[in-house]
């Protein structure tokens, strides 16, 4: 068991899912703490989550200002040292903007905000987000974004397709098609990880699918993967 492992949930001005993520972490046995974006020392933490929301109002471009928040230098240091780092929705956008994950997220194909549950197929278990899942699992998890459309140049995409894609939009029986793609993401990409598997990001919100009363518990396997990854890393 990894009970009590400390998770820094970073709060930028404009973040709004930080409390939900902390609630989920607590439910799954981790010890979350909300950390303001001006903090520069995260050495006491075993993992970091960048939650959803609209960091710095998403002004200029999603994540473009957040990547310069003081805390991000420390997040980069921990990511390089192998500490689990997870970005959810806006957090994923920030990780891409900071260069910790490749590619970028642009406006949805239909130019409308999308809030609804989508199906995701697990593509790889070599990441802190999916290690407890099984390749081919289909999960039903809410999406909630305007800029959720993943893009990357062809060479980056080719490279990513060697195990870096961890989740794809699919239909309920796991088939990946244009019809199952809610936002126009290249290759139906919903979540990716870096080469080491310790930095991962996804657009859907696993923390919104952790209790039966909320309609789905499919997000648990992803967040349990993250919690299970919080073995102490010397950073």
């Amino acid at each position, binding site marked *: 068991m990894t009970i009590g492992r400390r998770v820094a949930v970073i709060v930028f*001005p*404009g*973040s*709004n*899912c930080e*409390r*939900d993520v902390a*609630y*989920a972490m607590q439910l799954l046995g981790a010890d979350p703490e909300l950390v*303001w974006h001006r903090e520069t020392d995260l050495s006491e933490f075993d993992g970091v989550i960048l939650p959803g*929301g*609209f960091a*710095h*109002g*998403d*002004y200029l471009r999603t994540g473009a200002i957040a990547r310069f928040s003081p805390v991000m230098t420390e997040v980069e240091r921990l990511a390089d040292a192998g500490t689990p780092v997870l970005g959810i929705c806006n957090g994923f956008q920030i990780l891409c903007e900071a260069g910790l994950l490749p590619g970028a997220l642009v406006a949805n194909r239909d130019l*409308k*905000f*999308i*809030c*609804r549950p989508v199906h995701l197929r697990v593509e790889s278990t070599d990441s802190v987000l999916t290690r407890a899942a099984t390749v081919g699992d289909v999960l039903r998890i*809410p999406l*909630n974004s*305007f800029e959720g459309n993943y893009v990357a140049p062809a060479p980056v995409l080719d490279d990513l397709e060697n195990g870096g894609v961890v989740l794809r939009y699919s239909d309920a029986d796991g088939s990946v098609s244009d019809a199952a793609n809610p936002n126009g993401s290249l290759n139906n990409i919903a979540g990716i990880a870096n080469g080491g598997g310790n930095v991962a990001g996804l657009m859907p*919100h696993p*923390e*919104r699918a*952790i*209790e039966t*009363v*909320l*309609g789905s518990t499919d997000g648990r396997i992803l967040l349990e993967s993250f919690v299970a990854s919080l073995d102490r890393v010397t950073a």
Partner: protein
Amino acid sequence: MTTEAPAHIQLGMTDAEYDAVVDILGREPRPAELAMYSVMWSEHCSYKSSRAWLGRFPTEAPWVVVGPGENAGVVDLGDGWLAALRIESHNHPSFVEPFQGAATGVGGILRDIFTMGARPIAVWDPIRFGPLDDAHNRYLLDGVVSGIAHYGNAVGVPTLGGEIEFSERYSANPLVNVMALGILKQEQLVLSAASGEGNVAILLGASTGRDGIGGASILASASFDESSGAKRPSVQIGDPFEEKKLIEACLELYERGLVVGIQDLGAAGISCATSECAANGGVGMVVDLDDVPLREDDMNAGEILMSESQERMLAIVEPDDVDEVLELAEKWEINGAVIGTVTAGGTLEVRQHGEVVAEVPAASLSEDAPLYRRPAERPEALDRLWADPVDLPAGLDVGETLLRMLDDPAVGDRSWIYQQYDHQLFLNTVIEPGHDGSLLRIKGTTKGLAVSTDGNGRLCFMDPRRGGARIVYESALNVAVTGARPFAVVDNLNFGNPEKPEIMWQFIETIEGMSAACEALGVPVIGGNVSFYNETDGVDIFPTPVVGMLGFADPMPGHVPRLDQAEPGMEVWLIGPEDPTDFAGTTYSRVVLDHVGGRPSDVDHTIGPKVVDEAVRLAHAGVPVLHDISVGGAAVAVAEICFRSGCGARVDSDDWRTLLSAGPHRFLAVVPPGFDLEVTDVPARRIGTMGGNHIDFGRHGRVPLSLAADVWRNAIPRRMG
């Protein structure tokens, strides 16, 4: 040669109102003073045409903590938990500029909630437009929905629903109402009263600009004509990012016990916030406008006092706490500026550039506002309307009729709208938009809050008293089917020009109908808003009261009924009295016959509350599906269950009319075969069975489920493109 109208006329005041100001001050008002009175005495701020009638609403119950008059109504949920609820309108701003008008409506209502010390946890948006075959109406709908999504999603408060209605009557005057719910612990409750001589007034949040000047008096309190586009500068611009920081900063201020009183800056800006804080506390205040952070240097005193720049709050704090409050503002990256001091006596003194620009009795801005008992007269046209009931055929293909009704955008699937809204944030959403009422849990408790917003302008036009009562009962049933009992009401009364006697009559009749229904249900009215002058080029909207109903369940049902839980073989029951003659204002009359006439059936204050009680009981008894029957009749209600559950149904009826008539006190229950409903107090009749690939009305026709579902899903998207 034209002479320019006097200043007070340009500001929307009458000569008599101007004379009253002169009486109060004992002299001619200075320009800044006139500006303050003009906004504070506007219809929007002073309720001068409606106040005399609003006292009819029942407002008392043991669980009411704060009733009408404060920023939001507050009720007691037990175990130290309170809920705060408030509704507002942003009709005229949304017509002039739909995106910003709707966006700032969300921002404003949230400030009303966190002003009370509560964290806002959800928003609802009842909206009304002209028909979507007109490009301008499509532009308005798209702009309003985008504006709500833009602001609500970014500020981080989920939007859990609302309702939508279309009519020509809203083409030139759309209605954009917004309601917000907050929760708080008892000790966090804050009121908007300044007290303590020497205490300090701190302006928090955005800087003050020229946006929104005169919004309350020029936009919200006057009728529209073709020149209304010129009023666009009176619309405020919203910044949800600034508001998000302001919410968090204020909630932390309360948590640390740093505020004596607080008031949001909404209509009439600094004028309203300072005078209300002072008047509520029975004190005065000295305010120096040189200390107000401005967007433009050369603003005059009147402009600064009247500006409706968004995302601002006025906090009253003790002198010793000023540094800590300013530090906290710095942490959250918002402005914090000391702009005034609380004084003894009741004078609001405003200075600029070392001179006194205003010196008025603070209470006179609110308490001495004019009160009008405008003439009311029943419109004669109503007799002709009632004498012209729907001409019903002997027989009807209900299947084919249903298809036509499902294609109507007010009946069709609303997910095109609510999927643009974050409706899950905070992990409270048990019943999401698209059902009768939405249901939220309060984490760490067994408590649930159900909410529904309901209006029906057409019904209220045809009989304002009956219509007003019916929307209250409908709203009550909408929360009851989630297992919550009706607990408190807020209302948004959208009406035409109150200077017309028939509009005043509609207004008074509506209040009577709503009040009687609230009394029968034992539900207090804890707040409301009046929006008059919804008139463009002389055409008034339908009288459109909108009810916001808060339901409360403790505990929530173990298995909450949902529309998507019907399965083949389950029985369909109709609970409540049938009324096969009630066709006035039905979807069938409107969509298929294009007929407005006849008189809607009256409510029954004996059986109505019993039907509501039965719905609550059945929700807790494990019934998988409960669904209110509205003006679409049983046919539409059954179809909605079919679409959400992915399963057909067979419904039989001797008389086709019972499938399409309205009737106020009815709902459907879908139960496993043999389930004993144990309904004894009110009529209950089995009408059908779930299953098959059709929505099948027996000898009254049928329609393939897939075709019907397709039509229903595309009703709005196919029009919006």
